[in-house]
C-alpha cells in the first residue's frame, strides 16, 4: 500500500469512513501517522464543543457564585467543589455507569418517548462530562476575575447610567474576561489534553473509532514498540497546543486592545490537571 492509498483508506477511519479493518501486520510509519491523525479529529471535537458550551455555563456559574442570593450561590459552590474536587477519570466512569442504567427503551415524557441510548455513546456522554468539568474549572477562574474587576470601572458605569444587562454586557463581562484570559488559556490547554482520557475510562470505542491516543495505544500494543506511536501522538498534541495558544492570543489581543501596552504575550504555565 502506498502512503496515498493509506491516507485514502484511514484518514477518516475514526469517523467510520474508509477501510473497516485496522492494519494488523506490516505496520509502517505512514499508517501510524494517518490513523493517529485521524483520531485527533475526536480530540478536537471534544475540546471545541466542551470549551464553547462550557464557556457560557462557566460565566453563569461564576455570576451565581458571586451572587448575594444563597439559593444561587450555594448550588454553584457545590457544583464547582464537586467537579474540581474529584478526578475527571472517576467522573467519566461514574457518568458512564449512571447513563447505562437509564432505561433502554427511552423515557416517557408528556406522551413522547425520549431516546436515551445515544447518551451512553462517547460523543454525547463524554462530551457532557467534559462540558460540566470545564465549566467548573472555568467558573472558578471567572469568579476570581469577577472579584477583581476594578471598583472604578463599576463606578464609571454607574456614572454613565448603565444598569443591569447593559452594565454587565459592556463593562463587567469584558473586564472579567480580560483579567481571566491568561488562566483561561491554561484551562483550555488542559481540557484539550484531558480529552485523551475519554476512551480509557469506560466509554467504549464503537467499531474501534477512537481518539489519537486510542490508536497510538493500539499500535504500541500490536508492535510492542512504544517508541514510535507515542512520540507521534506527542508531536500532534504539541502542534495543536501551539495552534490553541495562537488562537487564544488573538482573543487576548482583542480583549486588551483599549489598554495601551497591556497586550503581553500569553505565558503558558501549566497549573491545572484533572
Amino acid at each position, binding site marked *: 500500500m502506498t502512503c496515498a492509498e493509506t491516507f485514502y483508506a484511514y484518514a477518516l477511519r475514526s469517523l467510520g469512513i474508509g477501510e473497516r479493518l485496522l492494519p494488523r*501486520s506490516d*505496520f509502517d510509519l505512514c499508517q501510524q501517522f494517518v490513523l493517529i491523525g485521524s483520531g485527533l479529529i475526536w480530540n478536537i471535537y471534544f475540546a471545541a464543543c466542551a470549551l464553547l458550551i462550557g464557556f457560557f455555563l462557566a460565566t453563569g456559574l461564576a455570576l451565581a457564585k458571586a451572587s448575594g442570593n444563597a439559593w444561587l450561590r450555594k448550588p454553584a459552590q457545590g457544583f464547582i*467543589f*464537586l467537579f*474540581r*474536587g*474529584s*478526578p*475527571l*477519570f*472517576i*467522573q467519566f*466512569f*461514574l457518568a458512564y*455507569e*449512571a447513563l*447505562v*442504567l437509564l432505561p433502554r427503551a427511552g423515557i416517557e415524557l408528556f406522551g413522547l418517548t425520549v431516546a436515551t441510548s445515544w447518551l451512553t455513546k462517547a460523543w454525547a456522554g463524554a462530551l457532557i462530562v467534559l462540558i460540566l468539568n470545564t465549566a467548573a474549572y472555568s467558573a472558578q477562574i471567572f469568579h476570581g476575575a469577577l472579584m477583581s474587576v476594578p471598583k472604578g470601572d463599576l463606578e464609571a458605569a454607574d456614572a454613565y447610567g448603565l444598569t443591569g444587562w447593559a452594565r454587565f454586557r459592556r463593562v463587567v463581562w469584558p473586564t472579567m474576561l480580560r483579567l481571566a484570559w491568561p488562566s483561561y488559556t491554561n484551562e483550555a*490547554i488542559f481540557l484539550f*489534553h*484531558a480529552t*485523551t*482520557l475519554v476512551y*480509557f475510562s469506560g466509554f467504549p470505542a464503537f467499531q474501534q473509532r477512537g481518539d489519537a*491516543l486510542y490508536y*497510538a*495505544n493500539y499500535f*504500541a500494543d*500490536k*508492535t*510492542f*514498540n*512504544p*517508541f514510535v506511536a*507515542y512520540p507521534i*501522538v*506527542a508531536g500532534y*498534541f*504539541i502542534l495543536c*497546543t*501551539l495552534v490553541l495558544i495562537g488562537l487564544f492570543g488573538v482573543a487576548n489581543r482583542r480583549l486588551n486592545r483599549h489598554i495601551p501596552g497591556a497586550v503581553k504575550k500569553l505565558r*503558558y*504555565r*501549566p*497549573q*491545572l*490537571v*484533572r
Partner: protein
Amino acid sequence: MFSQCADPKALEGLNWLMCYLSSGKHLLFYASFGTVLLLLAITAPIALLFGFGGAMASRSRVAPLRWFGKIYTAMVRGVPDIVFFLFVPIALDQGIEWTRNWVLCDDPVSPWQGNEFLVCQAAKMPLSSSPQWVHEAYGFGLAVIAFAIVFGAFAANVLYGAMQAVPRAQLETAEAYGMSQRQVNRRVLIPQMWTYAIPGLSNLWMILIKATPLLFLLGIEDIVYWARDLGGAKTQTFSYPHPDWRLYYFLGILVFYLLMTWLSEKVIARLTRRLSAGQATMAGEALRKGAA
C-alpha cells in the same frame, strides 16, 4: 471472615450486607485505598526531588545541562500527561530488559523481532520464577517512576518560577559578601524560594491526588480496578449474587476523593497561614495587623 458468613445464600438483610462487605475481595478493595495513599507518599518527595533537579538544571551555566532542564520542564506543556503514563512504564521496562538482554543472555540478538519483544529467560524482569509480590512491586515501582517524572516536570516549573521570583538584589548581596555560587544557592536562594513556591506546590499536590486513579491504566490493582471488579453484575454462581452495582462503588470512590481534596485544602490553608507569618508580603502584613 465471620463465622455466620459461612453460608452466604442463607443470609438476609443487614447480615448479608455485613458479610458481603467483609468478604475477602472487599478486604483487598479496602487495602487498595492504602495503595493510593502509598503512591502519594512515595511519589510526592521523589517528584519534588526531580523538580528540584530540573529547576536547578534549567538555571545552570553549563549549556547542555540547561537545555536538558528546559526541555524537561517544557515537555509537560504540550503533551498530555496520560501519554507519559502510558509511555514511561513500557519504555522503562523494555529499556531494562534490553540492557539485561545484552549482558545476561548467552548469544544476544536484538529483542525486537517482527512485532514481538523477546528476550531470553535470564533477562526477563522480573524473572518468571520470582514470586507474585515481586511482579506487583515491580509494576508499582514503574508506576511510581512514571508519576515522578511527570510531576517532577510540573514541580520543576513551579520551583523554577519560585527561584526566579527571589529578588535579584538578595543574590547580588550574597555574591558581594564573597559567597561562592553554591553558597549563594544554599544559604540565600533555596531558603527564600519556598514562600513563592508554596501556592504552586499545594496546587500540584491537589493535582497529584486527582491523578492517582490513572494507576488503573498502568495495570495496578487499585481502587478503580476493584470497583469495576466487585461492582459488576454477579450471577447465582457467585457467593453474593447482585445486579450491576458499579455506580455505587464509583460513588464511594468519588466521596473518597472529595474528602481527600477537602482535607488537603484545610491543611494547606493552615500551612500557608503559618508560612506567611513574619513575611514581608501582603499575607504576612495582614496577619501582623490582625494580631495587633
